[in-house]
């Protein structure tokens, strides 16, 4: 059962990364950070940190744009692992935690990767934030329904 769940989470992350690389979800020039949204959402359903790290590494390999080191990969890894820890510590409902972590993660990503971009392109950042939260919430709800029982994050 755990193996089956892990492969479905892996499939979700891989599919999200592929979609992000294609630009198929580009709406009015805004591309969602589907990899971040899916990594944060699946962090609530990963059995343990080790299997989650595997998901993060799979996403980073898929997101690799060129052969050299990319700071984006480091930021994505940091944000994903932070969301895994924070999602289990925040006191609100898991779906609210998911929304807050995706929203916060989107802003933090730009603050760390390209701070000037937020000031110059605030509309794009806000648009992407909304887009990420919507997609992340859909992914979260699908997994919540699929797992049948409500998630008790403190029992993971």
């Amino acid at each position: 059962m755990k193996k089956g769940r892990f492969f479905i989470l892996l499939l979700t992350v891989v599919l999200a990364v592929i979609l992000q690389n294609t630009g198929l979800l580009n709406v009015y020039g805004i591309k969602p950070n589907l990899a971040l949204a899916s990594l944060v959402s699946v962090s609530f359903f990963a059995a343990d940190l080790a299997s989650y790290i595997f998901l993060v590494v799979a996403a980073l390999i898929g997101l690799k744009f060129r052969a050299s080191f990319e700071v984006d990969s480091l930021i994505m890894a940091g944000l994903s692992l932070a969301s895994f820890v924070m999602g289990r510590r925040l006191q609100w409902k898991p779906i609210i935690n998911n929304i807050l972590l995706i929203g916060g993660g989107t802003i933090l990503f730009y603050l760390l990767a390209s701070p000037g971009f937020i000031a110059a392109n605030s509309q794009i950042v806000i648009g992407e934030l909304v887009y990420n939260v919507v997609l992340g919430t859909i992914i979260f709800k699908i997994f919540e329904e699929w797992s049948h029982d409500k998630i008790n994050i403190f029992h993971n």
Partner: protein
Amino acid sequence: MIILGLVGTAFFGNFLTATKNRLAAVVSLTPFEKPQTITQNGRQVIIAKIYSTFPFNYRNLITLNAGSMSGIGLGTPVTVDGNILLGKVIEAAGDYSVVQTIFDKNFSLPVRVGSHQIEALLIGAQEPRLTLIDKAAAVKENDVVYSASADFPYGMKIGNIAEINDPAASSFKEASLRLDYQFNSLKDAALLSDWHEKR
């Protein structure tokens, strides 16, 4: 034991050779798709496939399946169809290159507008725009915008003026661009591989 080992090795070797021969009979390798070189009217372009686009919004870069082995170098102009400017190569590896497009926030280019050759500056963004247009300049909608930088062939078309913005508080006019293509649907790009040699 030694004899047994030698016989076993010979038998296993023969088995591998037979397997290899069987595979060789079945496998038929088709050549990999390579960038095509087209020469017309004294110009040469390399048609390359777009591998992927930068996965995040804050940069607008693309990777192509042509690199230094195909004669691509830093600064090589990249076009949509050999005539419309799309960007320039900023990184060239052996078999791929990274292109900074006109949609990238770090891209800027001196341009000229229309038949009066009015000067302006193209600023890269998701929706590229023209700035520093003289208030008195007679810029009209649909005027052609073309490159006027030494980095690219003079007069390469970029797009047309879509909308002119003339804010009272600013010393210059601004304008948005209308492009002849959909960036997201591009699958190929044409690189002016001989531009630097000619220069």
